[in-house]
């Protein structure tokens, strides 16, 4: 199954897991699967229309899915989906 890397700010919603395996044929299905398993994640990933929030970057392996086919980008079992939020901590 594809793996999803969970950033620190979302780990409270995934029982502390930093890497979650979620089935799905495309990026949208994988993220939906994650949101179904951990409902609190959904609100932070998607806006009311079901699109990715602009402040959340999603990568398939090392490439931004916005430069691929977005949520429709197909995903293989060996792929890793990275959820990447901006962080500002420096001190």
């Amino acid at each position: 199954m594809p793996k999803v890397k969970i950033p620190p700010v979302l780990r409270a919603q995934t029982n502390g897991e930093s890497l979650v395996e979620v089935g799905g044929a495309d990026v949208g299905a994988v993220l939906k699967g994650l949101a179904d398993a951990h409902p609190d994640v959904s609100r932070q990933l998607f806006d009311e229309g079901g699109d990715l929030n602009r402040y959340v970057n999603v990568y398939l392996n090392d490439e931004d899915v916005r430069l691929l086919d977005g949520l429709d980008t197909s995903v293989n079992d060996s792929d890793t989906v990275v959820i990447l939020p901006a962080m500002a901590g420096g001190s």
Partner: protein
Amino acid sequence: MTPPETKTRASGADLIAQAKASVDEVQPTEAAAELDAGDVTLVDVREQHEFEERHIEGAVHVPRGHLESRIEQFVPDRSKRVVLYCASGNRSALAAKTLDELGYEDVASMAGGITLWRDRGLPVVTPRSLTQEQKERYSRHILVPEIGLEGQLKLLDSKVLLLGAGGLGSPTALYLAAAGVGTLGLVDDDVVDASNLQRQVIHNTERIGMPKTESARKAIEALNPDVKVLEHNGRLNSENVIDLISEYDVIVDGADNFPTRYLLNDASVRLKKPVVSASILSFDGQISTFVPFEGPCYRCLYPTPPPPELAPSCGAAGVLGVLPGIMGMLQALEVFKLVTGAGTPLVGRLLLFEALGTEFTELKVRRDPDCPICGPNAPEVADEDLGKFPDYDAFCAG
């Protein structure tokens, strides 16, 4: 019984006079003409420090004390033309005699040395060099071919501004100072607190309560007197950002809030200043290098900030002390590469570090064709508007 050998008692001046009488001498103008025509090896026989101070361009350096052992490296063919010079023409005459004894067939000493050469208005090069103390201090840099003397001089000439003298800024500042970055600017409006010391290694227990810029300056000055520290005890804001960053070659962003990060990005793109940007939270770090118009900018990567609940600070969420150490040193490494030109900086690459698994992940970051700051359709900023910025607090709260 043979009588004891009687030693000749010639003075040094006699020996020099004899040498001068027995070797060919050329005038500086003649030597210059030979050098122009080529097919001559000009040898500077003075000491290292004299050569470093100034010498004739194109000369090879073989100190007189090393002449016998080294001249063959430079002039293996003893039939070739060799012209020697020193400061005034004495040492080079003695050296010419030595070469004659070694079987060199076409040797001359330049009359009057480099002193007369300069009096005749002929050009010399005055290469920049390091003091003896600096040579010793930076010897392990100089030994590395990718850095060498040239790279070390670039570091000494460089001016780097650090935003934040905290978790990230502490290791970055210490390593850049140790490396001999000539000018380090520090921006921070905070004072040292006991809770900082678990990770902010540039400060110490004695300096609790002291402004962080001052505390950091003391640590840097104790580490390396070559570094000039400029304290900017305050916050970066839209009034001071342009003046502040225009004085520096590279900006290191270790700020702890989004408004500052967006403000710095927008200003650095306007002034085309590279920014090394890192951030940390609990066990996770991110770092990238933004070189305006060569690669993406911070806004290409993060067009809008996350809502506050998704952007906790280290103060609220905690951070492993060693994490800013690792990320701060990666920042110092990026600065080193930008300044010296060695290696490949993280331009267009975002490096993630997860400390518990000790995992690095690299993501590609592209320039956003719709970027409102560095994209092809970004509005031009007129010179008189260079210091005008939107309200970042409102933007980041939105």
